[in-house]
């Protein structure tokens, strides 16, 4: 069954097309990731699916409900974890959950039972009656995850769920998400610009400039790169590229720091042949370093878009975000 069905979804802001004719389906119980640089249209897409933004064109269904037709029903059936914290820091953890239950019309009995269970899951039972102001960044995120689940949504949307957290906390959050998927069978739709996190998804859509450039499992996407990545630095990288034309490679190009990046089927066998070729001929090249690795999603992104995942310029909102981080953390 398709929990999310999106067809030619488009969103424009004036002349700027933030999301352009995006089409995809998300299946039940999968973790579906939207991977792309900042400003690629990830949050805009999530906001349309959550009925926070009206689509300019196309359509989207969540749990079989058209987001443009019955936004209230869509909202009741989804849980949302935002990029920016959305807890009331002057209230306790439990109070934050209680307000959520009131807004989603969860009965008092259900609230009591579920909040205990969820607080236990995210290991916040002991801190539930402390003010959120005293929580660490990771604890706040965990509370937000439990809050998002309080009304038993069928889909959980997570917009950059680990943004701004340290690596250890990020790993911790992922453990909760995996546990959640195993225990409850919930569908998760998330956006991220961390490559390593995208690897955790069942399927990934790579989005750039508002368009989906590839959609598949992480393994299949890495298969697009076709084999291994060999990175080499020599005394003359230009000459190295010329010499490499004698060998069978899938692709040879210059990396950002002038190094030579080669895509080849069997990297381990390729390296000795490459070294021999560099040593042969009238003008032998000196090899400074060689590196062999399996392709990552970053390689897939570079191959598909010709760029590394880039940082956008800080918008007004980013500046607010920055200021908030400076003063509140």
């Amino acid at each position, binding site marked *: 069954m398709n929990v999310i069905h999106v067809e030619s979804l488009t969103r424009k802001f004036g002349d700027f097309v933030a999301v352009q004719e995006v089409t995809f389906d998300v299946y039940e119980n999968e973790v579906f990731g939207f991977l792309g640089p900042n400003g690629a249209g990830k949050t805009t897409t999530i906001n349309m699916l959550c009925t926070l933004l009206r689509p300019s064109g196309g359509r989207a269904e969540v749990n079989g409900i058209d987001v443009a037709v019955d936004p209230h029903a869509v909202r009741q059936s989804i849980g949302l974890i935002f990029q920016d914290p959305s807890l009331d820091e002057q209230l306790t953890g439990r109070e934050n959950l209680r*307000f959520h239950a009131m807004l989603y019309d969860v009965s008092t009995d259900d609230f009591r039972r579920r909040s205990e269970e969820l607080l236990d899951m995210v290991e916040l039972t002991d801190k539930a009656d402390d003010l959120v102001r005293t929580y660490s960044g990771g604890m706040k995120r965990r509370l937000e995850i439990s809050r998002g689940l309080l009304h038993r949504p069928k889909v959980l949307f997570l917009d950059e769920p680990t943004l701004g957290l340290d690596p250890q906390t990020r790993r911790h959050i992922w453990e909760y998400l995996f546990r959640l998927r195993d225990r409850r069978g919930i569908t998760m739709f998330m956006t991220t610009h961390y490559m390593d996190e995208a690897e955790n998804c069942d399927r990934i859509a790579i989005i750039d400039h508002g368009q989906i450039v590839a959609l598949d499992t992480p393994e299949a996407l890495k298969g697009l790169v076709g084999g291994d990545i060999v990175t080499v630095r020599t005394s003359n990288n230009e000459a190295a590229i010329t010499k490499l034309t004698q060998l069978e490679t899938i692709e040879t190009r210059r990396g950002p720091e002038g190094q030579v990046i080669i895509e080849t089927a069997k990297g381990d066998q390729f390296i000795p042949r490459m070294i021999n070729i560099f040593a042969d001929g009238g003008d032998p090249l000196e090899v400074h370093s060689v590196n062999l690795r399996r392709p990552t999603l970053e390689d897939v992104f570079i191959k598909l878009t010709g760029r590394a995942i880039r940082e956008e310029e800080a918008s007004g909102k980013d500046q607010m975000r920055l200021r908030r981080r400076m003063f509140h953390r």
Partner: protein
Amino acid sequence: MISIRRELKGAFTIWYRDVLRFSRDRSRILASFGQPLLFLFVFGAGLAPAMTGLGAGQVDFKQFIFPGILGMAVLFTSIFSSVSIVWDREFGFLKEVMVAPVSRTSVALGKVAGGSTVAMFQGILMLIFAPILGIKLTVGQLTALIGLMLLLAAVMTSLGILIAARQRTMEGFHMIMNFILLPLFFLSGAFFPLRGVPLWMEWVSKIDPVTYGIDPLRSVALRESLPAAILQDLTLHSVETNIVVMLAFGVAFLVPAIWLFSKQD
């Protein structure tokens, strides 16, 4: 499906949150005493010698500005609490509210109710200075003052939401303070009688909603302390007229505020 019960519950949740936060934040309550007190005792004491002509010399200047101080506490608290939705919407609890299955109209109404309640309480706290200033207040006067403060609070909270409804960053915040809040306050007759002022000021004060909030506060608060004829000279309209004008301002702010706030992007 929109159900009335759930909408009311949603609005109640927003109101309840504002009240709970207010009751918990003791430091904010204390801090909010600071500015009105400064105006009351520094301004009041400093200007008193120059204002001896007020009401044919029978009026204590501090007593005269006391209703203005009540209005100030209410005005600042209501505008701050409603303008804070800009921040709250991007980086706070309101973001969570905006995606809940509750209509924006209920969210806005809950916010007006919450902001007004908190501002009214702030005004009530200021009433404890009345005896210190020698202002006698009966139970009837107290009730009327509280009602008038609630009305002023609701009008100003609605104005605050109207200002904040489409704002996405806090950059305009100081501009709002300097170009809206302070002029509204200074031109309202809080610190000086509006009779005999230059014509332009008289006209500007006529379109200042705060004027109609402070004027009835003064009529009611000083009713027992001043002779009726002198009080008449220091006020502009009857309490009833003021209430009607404030209600009209309230509707004129609230309707577009809800409309703007509900407009989906």
